């Protein structure tokens, strides 16, 4: 018990850090679900593809990136975001658009198929061997309120925060954002009001996938290891985070990510690290049974 108390600041910090990754990926899940009611299970693999694109770019740059450090990493991250965003749009066009209006189970199975295609596509191109990331974020260790905090952690959380803030502004403050919100309320109605539904859906996939791609590059640079199956577990966790926050709700996804990170950190501190996943998914089941709309979920009755 004493151990748990002295560890507390560290547990909270570790939870928030992992949670910010979950949040970034959960956003894509939540946005897509909010608009076309699709659980895009290929989303975790977009994160993996982002990490591999970052790996390829940094390897191609060779030694020159070392001199520019963080700046080059951010540039690489942006290029990866563009590419993963495009891949997200392509996946939507090829796999989901032809099935619009099909039973939701069919689309769900297609999503699982898209996920496998991405995983084994990358394995076929890059090999199934896990790879070390060419750039490693190293930095000072600071002690804050009894927790050990590293500079790279702060930088990555800042980047995640900026991306999420920008997205929030975009959804609430631009006409595309308004179009997204209106489609999620009533797709047919929006179509009749002159909203270009297909282009807005494409844009949603682009943004969601770009955020996952950013998370992939960040995870590669921080943890230093990438493999073609790295998106699987974290995809499920992000889905859990989206459900906790209220799937379809953008701010809920961010909150859900952080909450899940904290829940996992506390759970594994109290009952042991090997129970971490069990804890995360038990929370998912709890939410699905007790409060399926999540913490910030909108009332479902709006849809008639």
């Amino acid at each position, binding site marked *: 018990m004493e151990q748990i108390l002295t560890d507390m600041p*560290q547990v909270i910090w570790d939870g928030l850090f*992992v949670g910010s990754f979950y949040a970034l990926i959960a956003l894509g899940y939540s946005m897509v679900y909010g608009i076309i009611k699709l659980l895009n299970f290929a989303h975790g693999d977009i994160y993996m593809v982002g990490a591999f694109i970052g790996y390829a770019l940094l390897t191609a740059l060779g030694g020159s990136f070392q001199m520019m450090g963080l700046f080059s990493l951010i540039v690489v991250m942006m290029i990866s975001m563009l590419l993963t965003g495009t891949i997200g749009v392509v996946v939507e066009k090829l796999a989901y658009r032809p099935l619009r209006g099909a039973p939701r189970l069919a689309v769900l199975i297609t999503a699982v198929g898209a996920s496998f295609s991405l995983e084994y596509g990358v394995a076929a191109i890059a090999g*199934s*061997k896990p790879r*070390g990331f060419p750039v490693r974020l190293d930095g000072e260790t600071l002690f804050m309120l009894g927790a050990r905090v590293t500079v790279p952690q702060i930088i990555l959380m800042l980047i995640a925060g900026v991306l999420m803030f920008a997205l929030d502004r975009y959804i609430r403050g631009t006409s595309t954002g308004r179009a997204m919100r209106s489609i999620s309320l009533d797709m047919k109605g929006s179509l009749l009001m002159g909203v270009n539904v297909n282009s807005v859906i494409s844009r949603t996939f682009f943004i969601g996938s770009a955020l996952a791609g950013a998370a992939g590059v960040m995870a590669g640079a921080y943890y230093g*290891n990438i493999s073609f199956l*790295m998106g*699987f577990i974290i995809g499920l966790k992000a889905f859990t985070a989206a459900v906790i926050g209220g799937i379809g709700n953008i701010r809920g996804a961010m909150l859900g990510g952080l909450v899940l990170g904290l829940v996992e950190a506390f759970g594994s501190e109290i009952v042991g*690290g090997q129970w971490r996943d069990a804890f995360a998914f038990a929370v998912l089941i709890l939410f699905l049974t007790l409060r399926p709309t999540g913490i910030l979920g909108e009332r479902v009755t709006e849809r008639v």
Partner: protein
Amino acid sequence: MNFGKRTLGVLGVATAVLLATSACSGGLLGGGDSGDSDSGPIKIGMIVPTSGSSAPTGASMSNGAQMAVDEINAAGGILDGRMLELQIADGACDAQQAVASANKLVSSGVSISVGGYCSGATLPTLPIFDKAGVPMIIPAANSQDLVNEKLKSVFLINGTGLQQSAAALDFVKKQGYKAVALVDDNTSYSKDITTETEKQIKADGASTVVLNTSVNPGESDYSSVVRDINGSGADLVYWTGYYQEGGLIIDQLRKAGYTGDIMVADGSADPTLAEIAGAAAEGVYATMTPTPNTIDGAEGWIADYKKAFGDDPKPYSTQSYDAVRLAAAAFEAAGNTNTDDVIKALEGIKDFKAFSGPLSFTKDHTLASGGFVILVMKDADFQLFDNLQ
């Protein structure tokens, strides 16, 4: 909706029919001898991971086996000129995939199996091969669970978890560690070593086990186990899982300010560990069976291997090479490929010249001498540190 229900029904019937047919074919195949003729090539089956995160090791194992097959065939084959034919099947370190591959190999009529890397995936294949009368020489997988199956047809030529734990304890005593933290990845191979090591350290009494915990493989963030280790006051961490998680844990341990020593078991004793952990991997110890670059007099063999496959031999290349040679020797001694004769021949093997030293089997069909050594990571590669002699 109606349509959906009907499809489900049809699916159900289809599954039932499939199950029935596969049960039949199982019945036809099971129980009999391997059933090959007395001429033509002798098929050797090998299940190794060719996909998934352990695929690189799978490739180095199949290369080692292929090299032995090529050498034996070039020398005119065995049993009056019969050639050997190696059939690789993917085990993917996954029990279901391995079982499917074992069935595939059995139905293609292999006379012996020389595969098996991940213990968790190897274990369920044992009864399949055993029922079909296929003896197994397992080059890498070494969980005590494999021994506990007590199958007459199973032979392990890698040191077992028990022998590895004994080596770990030797090293702990030699270096004078006082507080040991044991971490496994919840797989049968890995848990086996931590359980056995804890038992032996407790029985020995010179040091204490301050932590024995598990992590989930396949994740990126291991901050909770890192906190536990730092809170336990350990001066040695012994990680018994595979290198992918091992690399991450080592990196995160060092980042979190852990200053004690780190040791890994043979599943992590691979140069890839350094690729993942970066500078943090320097000075990491490993309990390992001898590898090509830690064996004296293996230079010529390494050069041949490089010429054939354009890559350095990796851990278990030698064991796989030896497994095939051992199989050939057993066929020669038996004079045929009949299951019982081959098993008897393997039991009778004495001081067979293998990379790990003279090889004979105990009555449990494990190595009579374990041959574990301690390696240390230096300049991103494992080198011999202490041969524990």
